[in-house]
């Protein structure tokens, strides 16, 4: 018997498959020059995104990083609006002005990806302050990478969340490489979660390839935040299959290492194995889901290709509100 519901298993697996299909497709499109500025591929990190977002309420807030397609899709944004944004088309979620690193829609609780490493935790902390000021029953999640945890602003924000017991969850989407720099080479003290202990908040290092484990820890952190007990850090160990950016040909890690993660610790394969053995899904249902996400991504690419460019005359629109007399 499984303690997971069939519905949750199907939805989580589909969510991870959609991200994988989306990223594999976007990577190829980027290499073909279809995506201005390229992308940061999140293939391999699906369980972190789906595990976290499946534990949240749709109106909970997230603020994220330069690598955020997986968080955005897991938050329920359509492949169409995300792909169109990668193409910087007017139908994209940020109207083509944000691009791959700046996906967001505040009305749906997405306070944006970010081109600045470490900035997302601060914004999420501010949103958590807003939630507390209003007395809303929501939480705010700040994603940061293993690179971002070496920025001072991240820990300034965490300290503030601790002293005010803000409903904040910090997710370290720890893919172990800051661009080409291995986390252990640049991280004093080793285990990042130990830093959290020094700031006086519960901090856990977990298996970020296990969507169930990520979901359980996030749900627990959410309960704590809603109870007014303050923030939690979850350091989810994961791995990115591609380079930091599209087309990267780095020599900083071995092919054996990449193959080991892909073969033995792939989050989708691991979850299929578990869900199948627990009787939650059949082989044919898995195949149907694969087919389904493939079609969704094909449709998204078609939509993005056919979407219009933004109106170049709109360049001064929304620089500011104009209400203060700005032109």
């Amino acid at each position, binding site marked *: 018997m499984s303690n997971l519901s069939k519905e949750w298993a199907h939805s989580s697996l589909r969510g991870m498959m959609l991200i994988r299909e989306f990223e594999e497709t976007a990577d190829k499109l980027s290499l073909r020059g279809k995506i201005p500025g390229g992308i940061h591929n999140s293939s391999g990190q699906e369980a972190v995104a789906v595990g976290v977002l499946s534990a949240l309420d749709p109106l909970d807030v997230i603020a994220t990083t330069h690598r955020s397609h997986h968080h955005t899709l897991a938050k329920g944004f359509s492949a169409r609006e995300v792909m169109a944004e990668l193409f910087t088309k007017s139908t994209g979620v940020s109207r083509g002005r944000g691009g791959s690193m700046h996906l967001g829609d505040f009305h749906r609780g997405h306070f944006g990806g970010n081109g600045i490493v470490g900035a997302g935790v601060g914004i*999420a902390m501010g949103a958590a302050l807003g939630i507390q000021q209003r007395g809303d029953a929501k939480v705010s999640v700040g994603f940061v990478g293993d690179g971002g945890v070496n920025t001072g602003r991240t820990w300034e924000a965490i*300290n503030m969340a601790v002293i005010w017991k803000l409903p904040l969850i910090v997710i370290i989407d720890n893919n172990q490489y800051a661009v080409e720099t291995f986390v252990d080479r640049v991280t004093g003290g080793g285990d990042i979660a130990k830093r959290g202990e020094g700031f006086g908040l519960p901090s856990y290092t977990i298996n970020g390839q296990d969507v169930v484990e990520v979901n359980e820890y996030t749900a627990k952190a959410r309960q704590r935040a809603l109870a007014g007990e303050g923030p939690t850090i979850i350091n989810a160990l994961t791995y990115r299959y591609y380079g930091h950016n599209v087309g990267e040909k780095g020599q900083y890690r071995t092919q054996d290492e990449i193959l080991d993660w892909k073969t033995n610790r792939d989050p989708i394969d691991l979850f299929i194995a578990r869900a199948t053995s627990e009787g939650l899904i059949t082989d044919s249902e898995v195949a149907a889901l694969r087919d389904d996400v493939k079609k969704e991504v094909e449709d998204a690419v078609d939509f993005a290709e056919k979407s219009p460019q933004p109106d170049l005359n709109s360049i001064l629109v929304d620089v500011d509100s104009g209400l203060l007399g700005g032109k």
Partner: protein
Amino acid sequence: MTTSTQNQNPTYSEAFQSGVREEIYRNRDIFILGTDLIERGGHFAQVKGIAQEFGFQHVKDSPISEAAMVSAGLGAAMYGLHPIIDLNFIDFSLGAMDEIINQAAKIRFMFGQPVPLVIRATSGTALGGAHHCNSLESLFAHTAGLAVAVPSNAWDVKGLIKTALRSPDPVIFLMHKKLSGVRGEIGDENTLIPFGKARTVKEGKHAAIITYGFTVVTAQKAAVALASEGIDVEIIDLRTLYPLDTDAINSAVQRFGRVVVADEAPMFGSITAEIAATATEANFGSLKGPIVRIGSVRAPISANPGMSEAAIPSVDAMIAAVKKVVAY
């Protein structure tokens, strides 16, 4: 709200308190976040009594973490509140420059959402040396997405902060340290001063000084001295640097053809350069001679009072600049 004696008028700092207090009554989403606000009332008493009146919900004493202070305000503003982040001295904003320039200023453009955030700090030269006397207003005015207010008197402080607290845009609100205790009349609860509208401090016949902040005081002193020599100079206080009242600037150039632009920021690459260049491009035919700029030298501000004063425009320098344009 004229009072019977000059001493009963509120100070420049109290004018800020008054404006904020009235706006919190109107909008309970406003709160102030900064260091030493609750007991001390801020370093310039600018929020004294507000925590006691409205409760700690509206005044939050923060750790000294400028980046987190601004991101706290930023995230809360994105959530729909209207925070005032009090950074004390604008020099300290440099520890939060990513949050201000990369984040707050650009969000509306990228996401189409408002960022109703006020960042208040003191600005300008006084005693205190190189880390407490910067004039960074040109940097913020240069940044698309930010509005910049630079009030020179109590009336404008109150009217402008009230407008800022009804604005959906991020506003950098710069108050000059040397004006903190200066008393003056203030408007009532319905007196809002629009951004982008300069004030004619004093009308004149022969030339115009376009300025803002503490340099308005310098200009007023110069005008008195010049009047004794028969030179009647107009003084225009810009009040906000973005939006910038280009109509008032162009009108002054067209009417007089003899214009001085003055502030105490380093002149190299400054807002006075912007004003002189665009006003010249638009009104070259009206000018009797080049627009003259005075400002600070391109040097850090010294802790030595004499050196500090020497860096910024003196009354004598202002008088000389006006005489130069009058002589065209």
